[in-house]
């Protein structure tokens, strides 16, 4: 009994030092805030780049237009996917934006540019899964390529690629932990910081892991609801 009590008291003390002492819990949540900001901005940049590139590739394949843009997109995707993201981060942080001191924004830009290449491939698959007849029907009625893309192709492409796209967003939330590599204070960086003061890794790592897990679970739930909303024109949800 005595032994067990001592064990729990020690454990509590370790937790206390890692979380409550000197308001250290604030650091976790600041780190979490930074992680979410980086992931959010990166998602916006990545989706924008990805969808634009995917549209360029789709239009190029169907009409043969936008040849130069298509080549640029291909080179971009090849380079981004062919090099480690940690090197891309260092190149942006230490060379391209070496004059900036806003590490969070640099981290967000890095992951946005990186994610763009992956989203481009996901979205391209989404566009290609839309039946060619949809574009032909729109064009045969006299609508332009742009009008048909906007009203018909893009909504269907988005619906078709939502699951892999959401997977990419969730990966992004966790993957941004790499920004700690150049000293940006995200959630992944916090355990090391606290350990350097308490010399105890157990709770800092555990707490950070739990926070990531909770965020991902909430995100999964939200994305699931969105996905359901978009599938309303499927057969099983026929009516309205």
């Amino acid at each position: 009994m005595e032994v067990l009590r001592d064990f729990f008291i020690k454990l509590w003390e370790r937790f206390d030092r890692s979380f409550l002492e000197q308001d250290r819990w604030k650091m976790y949540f600041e780190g979490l805030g930074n992680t979410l900001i980086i992931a959010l901005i990166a998602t916006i940049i990545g989706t924008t780049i990805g969808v634009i590139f995917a549209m360029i590739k789709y239009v190029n394949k169907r009409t043969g237009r936008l040849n130069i843009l298509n080549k640029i997109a291909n080179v971009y995707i090849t380079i981004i996917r062919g090099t480690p993201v940690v090197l891309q981060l260092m190149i942006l942080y230490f060379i391209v934006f070496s004059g900036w001191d806003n590490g969070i924004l640099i981290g967000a830009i890095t992951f946005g540019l990186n994610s763009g290449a992956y989203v481009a491939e996901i979205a391209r698959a989404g566009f290609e899964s839309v039946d060619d007849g949809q574009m032909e029907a729109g064009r045969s009625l006299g609508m332009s390529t742009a009008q048909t893309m906007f009203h018909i192709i893009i909504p269907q492409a988005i619906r078709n690629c939502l699951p892999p796209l959401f997977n990419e967003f969730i990966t992004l939330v966790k993957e941004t932990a790499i920004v700690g590599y150049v000293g940006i204070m995200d959630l992944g960086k916090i355990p090391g910081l606290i350990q350097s003061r308490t010399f105890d890794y157990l709770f800092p790592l555990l707490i950070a892991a739990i926070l990531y897990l909770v965020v991902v679970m909430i995100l999964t739930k939200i994305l699931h609801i969105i996905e359901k909303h978009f599938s309303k024109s499927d057969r099983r949800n026929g009516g309205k």
Partner: protein
Amino acid sequence: MDNNSTPLIQVKNLSKSFGTNLILNDISMDINKGEKVVVIGPSGSGKSTFLRCLNLLETPTGGDILFGDANLTDPKTNINLHRQNMGMVFQQFNLFNNKTVLQNIMLAPMTIYGKNAKKSGKSKKQYEEECREKAMSLLKRIGLEDKADVYPSTLSGGQKQRIAIVRALAMEPDVMLFDEPTSALDPEMVGEVLDLMKELAEEGMTMVVVTHEMGFAKEVADRVVFMCDGIIAEEGAPNEFFSNPKNPRLAQFLQKVL
């Protein structure tokens, strides 16, 4: 020029090849206003490609297509403008999957003419209301007004195709192009689609129909065209065409399908 004597569509020396594969070989044809032309032929004969060249869904590799006063094959021609007057019906229906039935019919008129509504003194709302009324009356015509708010995935093939036809009619086209409109249908649904097409024919719509329905060709066509190996092997009024084929390939083909 006298409108009555000028053909609505003039096809002049039309050629189309995919790579080295010649699909259409120097085809010329006039289609008059109000005329019903039915194109038949074995698969791979180029009849669908011919139809799809008429509204430039396929880009011809040679020749000209005149539609009214416009040369559609001229790269400077705004093809969208002329496609608004050429309705097309596809084998696979191609209803917009992400739109309800009513939205399917209203989309093109709203998108294309909606922005001009202001010039004619109507608000966008008023124009939308007009489009909706017109779409609903088209749906009533085919007896599907109760399907206005459902998505295409819940409909039968015959319903889809009839909606695809009225979707094209909503643009009030001068000519309707039908690309094997009944080939993807279950047999019991072929009738309802052909009946609607016959109605259109009786109303005087100009029609070009690629089909395997010989009964329809006999009953409705002013002229039947037999395509084979990328050329027009024989054409004529249905009576003569079916009872007394001159081209041996046509005789052989008719023997198989009749």
